[in-house]
């Protein structure tokens, strides 16, 4: 078989294998009832109640929250993604409707800053500790240095001692 025919045969075989693989590839899975319920619960937990803003939509019984729950349930049943559902509410209410800020744009600062701050502080403390250990005085010399008294100090000690002895 000529080289050209060999290559054509190899290409045909590869394409046939690819087509066969695709034919048996599983179709995109629709969410099961349990998955839909989990998605619904997750979304209403992540949304803030517009009326009682300290609560999630899930925890609030305010009329608006009930309507938001209904809306989310319908959107989940329609097969909409979590991102699309949240984007719907963000477009109407703004970013604050999400209880956790997005991890992009200015919201990224909120996520990154605490950890970064801890790393910087730990790094600074580490450097200070190392520096202090380097400059720590020699322990053998310390007592000698501490006990070193100058001649003037010796004279003063002797003078004060004589005064106290005279008082006795």
């Amino acid at each position: 078989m000529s080289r050209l025919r060999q290559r054509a045969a190899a290409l045909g075989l590869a394409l046939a294998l690819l087509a066969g693989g695709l034919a048996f590839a599983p179709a995109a899975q629709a969410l099961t009832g349990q998955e839909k319920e989990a998605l619904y619960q997750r979304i209403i937990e992540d949304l803030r109640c517009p009326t009682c803003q300290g609560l999630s939509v899930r925890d609030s019984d305010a009329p608006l929250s009930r309507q938001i729950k209904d809306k989310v349930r319908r959107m989940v049943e329609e097969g909409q993604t979590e991102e699309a559902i949240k984007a719907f509410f963000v477009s109407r209410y703004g970013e604050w409707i999400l209880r956790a800020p997005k991890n992009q744009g200015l919201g990224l600062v909120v996520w990154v800053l605490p950890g970064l701050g801890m790393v910087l502080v730990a790094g600074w403390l580490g450097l200070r500790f190392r520096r202090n250990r380097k400059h720590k005085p020699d322990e053998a010399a310390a007592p000698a240095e501490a006990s070193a008294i100058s001649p003037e100090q010796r004279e003063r000690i002797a003078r004060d001692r004589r005064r106290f002895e005279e008082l006795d």
Partner: protein
Amino acid sequence: MLKSWQFWTVMGVIAGLTALFIFGFSVNPKVVKSPLVGKKAPAFSVRELNTGEPLSLASLKGTPFLLNFWGSWCPSCRDEAPILEAAHRKWGQDAERFRVIGIAFNDTPEAARAFAKRFGKTYYLALDDEQGTITLNWGLYGAPETFFVDHEGVIRHKKVGAITWEEVEENVTALLQAAEAR
């Protein structure tokens, strides 16, 4: 003893945090800017509370309007009811020039009609559906809330809470001037 660059770094951080602190206290946490301001108004379609006359955003094309969301259960809505009625009588008599519209939500037709009668509301009133479709589409936090929409269907201002006459006058005047200037 800190070195010069260390000292100024610390000072810079303290100054930055202080500025952030001051900014935070200068912002009213109750005032949340609506992302809809400056954007095209969401579509809606309703029927008048008493007559059943239909009204939609599309039918308002070219006419600036004030859209007030209210409820018979809402105490602040009672305070602003006379103001909205006065606005309708002053500017809303010519429906081609300006409209005052009220949409009640989380309410019943009977309670809404009783409220309208009690406060002498004569402008166009309607009721949102039980799912709160219009309420959610307009990003409501509660009642009352008032939107000012220009002749091109763009939301120019949103007020959360009972509206004052001064706010109505200022915003309606601006909308009418913009419409007349086209």
